[in-house]
């Protein structure tokens, strides 16, 4: 029963236990990718490196047996840097998108792939919820958005991009036409009050998300109607009115025809816990009219908080001019997160983590491989013209055209989770992308060697399951990858261990082919397939 010291805590472990066992016993989190609990260590990924007895070498905690009197440091700056480098090396040649490129380029980072999946599965209410998690005004945006997402859509390199904007509009229109449109639930009241100056897309969006977080919200608007810049957009007035009204129905108070002067601002700051300025573009001189310092773009802020003005925030064109409605909505969402954290006294707010590896341009062959998994139909144009939008059949058919570039295991990927935790810099050690083709021979599981980190977990699980062929680590060095012996496809290698391998694979290299079943698509919590 050796006794050792780990991060200044003494711990006694059974003979033969590793440093990782000791850390788990103490609750010290040491990251691992290649470790399978209860089996001998692989010592492959080396993200579990620790310092032992002050030695020059760093050792993997998973494979280093704890000995009497050992001193282990698990999170020094050097250990942190080494772990980050291991992750950066693993990500440097990773071939796959984490987020779909559409989501990556959307200024509001709307989870479009998930929306499409839900539309295809016929779960329109859930699709709307997915949309509204980032976009408070989807019916408006579905009409006026510049649709950056469609420019990022990889289907565009096959034939034409998925009609993302119209599908978003379809989901929102169905909801607006419903007897009881969706009203986002609000958290229990916090007793904190926020004022928002400006009822444009930024202000309205921020209002919606601050209400959902449980705060009391009042919007001050100089015009007689909410909507700001959207009122000049090519958009039926009733759609804007209907969506704005839904936000007000969340319990947001609107004070219209009220122009806020510098004196008013001081008063607002005195009576509210936080104030958000979403007044649209401010010229540097008009910024001064609010009595606030401004740069050439607009007001000066860091993470939406104005410098040296506690409790005062700004977002959207007020910070830097943009005519992009989706950006305005995204800014409203972001500012709401920052203000919520401020109101709750939290030092930082949970930023949307958009860490994503980019696969870049695919060869024709690779595209064909991926396109084979989705509908081959041409891009659908609404039969009644763009103004009428999609019919239900049209929408479902169009949604099935998505190539689903996003990683099937986005939320289950241990590599990405650790990369986020260690703030890995994806471009630091960039190398040629890993070679290899998708293995689509298995009816349920897809093997993507470009995402494999060669940890050997699947090889071992296949062996444990007594697979007749199983998997082997083939080749050596950088080219080493699991493969089915004798050149057979995955179908031959995984006859009974598929589920275990998909669950244990630390990346998206082994994943279910069907992203979501109809059942899981229709539960809005759907953390992709990870829970399956």
């Amino acid at each position: 029963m050796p006794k050792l010291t780990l991060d200044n805590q003494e711990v006694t472990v059974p003979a033969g236990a590793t440093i990782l066992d000791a850390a788990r016993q103490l609750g010290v989190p040491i990251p691992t990718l290649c470790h399978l609990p209860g089996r001998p260590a692989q010592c492959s990924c080396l993200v579990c490196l620790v310092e032992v007895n002050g030695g020059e070498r760093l050792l993997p905690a998973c494979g280093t047996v704890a000995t009497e009197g050992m001193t282990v440091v698990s999170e020094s700056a050097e250990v942190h840097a080494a772990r980050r480098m291991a992750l950066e090396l693993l990500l440097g040649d990773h071939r796959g998108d984490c987020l779909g490129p559409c989501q990556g380029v959307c200024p509001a980072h709307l989870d479009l792939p998930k929306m499409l999946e839900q539309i295809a599965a016929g779960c329109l209410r859930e699709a709307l919820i997915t949309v509204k998690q980032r976009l408070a005004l989807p019916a408006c945006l579905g009409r006026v958005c510049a649709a950056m997402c469609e420019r990022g859509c990889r289907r565009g390199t096959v034939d034409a991009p998925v009609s993302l904007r119209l599908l978003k509009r379809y989901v929102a229109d169905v909801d607006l036409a419903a007897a009881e449109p969706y009203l986002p639930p609000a958290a229990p009241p916090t007793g904190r009050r926020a004022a928002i100056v400006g009822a444009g897309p930024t202000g309205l969006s921020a209002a919606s998300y601050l209400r959902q977080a449980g705060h009391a919200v009042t919007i001050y608007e100089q015009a007689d109607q909410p909507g700001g810049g959207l009122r000049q957009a090519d958009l039926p007035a009733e759609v804007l009115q209907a969506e704005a009204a839904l936000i007000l129905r969340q319990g947001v108070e609107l004070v219209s025809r009220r122009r806020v002067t510098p004196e008013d601002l001081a008063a607002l700051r005195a009576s509210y816990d936080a104030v958000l300025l979403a007044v649209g573009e401010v010229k540097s001189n008009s910024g001064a009219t609010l009595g606030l310092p401004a740069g050439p773009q607009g007001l000066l802020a860091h993470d939406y908080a104005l410098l040296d003005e506690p409790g005062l925030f700004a977002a959207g064109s007020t910070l830097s001019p943009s005519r992009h409605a989706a950006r305005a909505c995204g800014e409203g969402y972001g500012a709401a997160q920052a203000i919520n954290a401020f109101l709750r006294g939290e030092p930082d707010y949970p930023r949307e983590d958009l860490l994503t590896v980019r696969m870049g341009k695919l060869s024709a062959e690779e595209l064909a491989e991926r396109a084979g998994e989705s509908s081959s139909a041409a891009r659908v144009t609404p039969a009644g013209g763009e103004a009428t939008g999609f019919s239900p059949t049209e929408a479902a058919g169009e949604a099935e055209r998505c190539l689903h570039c996003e990683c099937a295991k986005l939320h289950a990927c241990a590599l990405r989770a650790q990369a986020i935790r260690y703030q890995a810099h994806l471009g630091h050690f960039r190398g040629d992308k890993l070679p290899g083709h998708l293995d689509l021979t298995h009816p349920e599981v897809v093997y993507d060697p470009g995402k494999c980190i060669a940890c050997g977990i699947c090889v071992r699980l296949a062996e444990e399951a007594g697979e007749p062929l199983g998997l082997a680590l083939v080749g050596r060095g950088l080219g080493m990858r699991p493969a089915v012996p004798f050149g057979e496809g995955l179908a031959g290698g995984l006859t009974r261990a598929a589920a275990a391998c998909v669950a244990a694979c630390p990346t998206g290299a082994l994943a279910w082919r069907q992203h979501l079943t109809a059942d899981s698509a229709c539960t809005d919590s759907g953390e992709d397939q990870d829970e399956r």
Partner: protein
Amino acid sequence: MAEATAPPPVAPTVDLTVVDRLVAEIGGAPEQLIPLLQALQSHFRYLPPEALRRLSEITEITPAAIAGVSTFYSQFRHQPAGRHVISICHGTACHVKGAELVTDALRRRLSLAAGEDTDAEGLFTVQPVACLGCCTLAPVMQIDGVTYGHLTPDSVGQALDDFLQLADRGLLADAENGGRDGSGLAEIRIGVGSCCVAGGSLEVAQALEAAVRSLAAPAVLKPVGCVGICHQTPLVEIVLPHQPPALYARVQPGDAEAIIRRHFRPRGVLRRVRSALTVGLDKLLTDESWQPVTRHALEVRDAPVCAFLGPQQRLATEASGALDPLDLDDYRHHEGFVALRHALKHMQPEEIVRLVTESGLRGRGGAGFPTGVKWGLVRAAADQTKYVICNGDEGDPGAFMDRMLLESYPYRVLEGMIIAARAVGATEGLLYVRAEYQLAVQRLRTALQALEAEGLLGDGILGTGLSFHLHLREGAGAFVCGEETALIASLEGQRGMPRLRPPFPAESGFHGHPTLINNVETYALVPWIIRSGAEAFAEIGTERSRGTKVFALAGKVARGGLIEVPMGVTVRQIVEEIGGGVAGGRRFKAVQIGGPSGGCLPAELADVPVDYEALVGAGAIMGSGGLVVLDDQDCMVDIARYFLEFTQRESCGRCTFCRVGTRRMLDILDKLCTGGGRPGDLERLEELAHAVQRSSLCGLGRTAPNPVLTTLRYFRDEYEAHLEGRCPAGKCKALINYTINDQCVGCTKCAQQCPVQAIPLLPFSRPEIDQEKCLRCDTCRRVCPVGAVDVVSGPSVEAPLAHA
């Protein structure tokens, strides 16, 4: 209609009964997998998938094991090979002597496109090998069993022709077996350094040439650089198989015939091959360029450097040149088995361990762990079953110590192992030898049989109670198997992937039992230590590094070969006194010690003594004993790139830092050598190097950055020059141009030899090289009789010398 296309390759039917037969012969246990695959490949010339499937069906070896192992070792082919396999050596010595240019020329000659390794007719398959272990003949290639040395881009074609001629005339077996039956080609080395030439060596060479021809002596004349005994010029050395090299000083042309007669008296055994050789010699010796294509019998490859040169002291290589490797009586006459007899009959195991400990012997494989301590650990382990393993997986490119020791002194190595078995209490042992070392493998097989027949191996050795059974296993081409845990995995029939230590093999090794693993040289030293006593050994060498060390001296040195020196002599003594300094009048720039795990020491630091700690202090390591001398034409960035390419290729792939990290380092070095370097690259290279060194799982990974770190430390200016797109040594092809200066006499030799017609054929005028066409193959510079071809690098590359 296309009619000139080659017929499509027909997949031959695979006779699966061969698999059944081989399994019956070798056995079907998992640990026999590598021998089985080797046998299959030797029969089919590759591993046909049907045969592998059959293997999994009739043995207990799993498909996963077969797929994993057969793709791990570089020996195994999964595609059919051509009729003849050309193994082209990419060892360090070959690399610095232009192996890359030779490979390019060979591939051009066979019209191989990128990614192809077999020519259209299916006649030749070209495969690079890490090292053939005949560094003094660099650059070298082996076609089937025939070795060709001192290749140049323009002589590759001659070598292929020569080989095909041999094959046509059914003489391949002679050429291959030359070394084995003692009828191989001898080398007559004649100094053509400036002192020797001044002493009249060119006239002597002519006389020797005439004598060789008139007597039809089976020998090739080899001009060598300065041999370092300049007061005795001209020097002639005769290197014959099985015989000590003979050195003649102050040779006069009139002595030539007598010398040749003395060494090449016509003998029956020679007459058999004479006719073939004479034809060869005619061609070889009339070649004006003095760079004949030279075919070598296995044995002549690296004769020991003449024993009296420099501060040599022979323990492991005792009786060098005087011993017939396989003659047991001969070995006995040279005190063979005296130590074994003494150890078995008059020493307790503990005493042997104590003696070895007191001698101060440290592991000669590289890391220098005290041998006695290791023996003590295995001795003390409680397990009944223990193993003794000899690590003969000499994988360092540029090293051939183990090969030479195993070929020349097989009984000595085996004697050391039997003594070790007695000391640690083992009854089973294994010898793991590189498959590339065919002669060593053959000799060991014969030696093992001889020892068994004599009762020196097996049960009841020398009438004592000691039982020790030894088995020989061939490696299958993986440098990492020199690491002891990987070697054990390989012996167990698995992929040779190292694991984290502890537990050390002394505690849990082969099949989980306590295992002693020592290097060939370590075992070879044991008999001497037992015979002469611990003090005698400890008296040699330095405070912490006792005894002697064997080195494979190669590269740009005048006299390369196997040497053995007492610890403590300086690197400079080795290079200058033994090696005769740098060949060809170039400047001694650096010495690479320890191969891919070692470092490059600049000439200024050559006074560092041969001592484990001193070498580490200087940034190198003792390593297993590869010592490659570099001159001013060697680019240190290229050398670093060369080693990284090697380790990266040999990385087993287990851990992230070695698998990916070495690759990212290589990416940077590749860019530097091709003009794509960017600011910050050197810092990133260093950052990666330190991380790989600090965090890799095994010794291969942890030492892989050493060649980069030492060159960055001592030759940073060269790295900086490469960042600016300049290669000061004129080595990196992408950064150099060839130009013709006004020494040119218009002889058109360059234009005639240029493989791509980049030089116009204009007699009596100075041609201009077409830089677009130029391959930088160096042929023009080599063939120019007046030194009119310059290599330029740097900004001036853009503007070659302007002339009308």
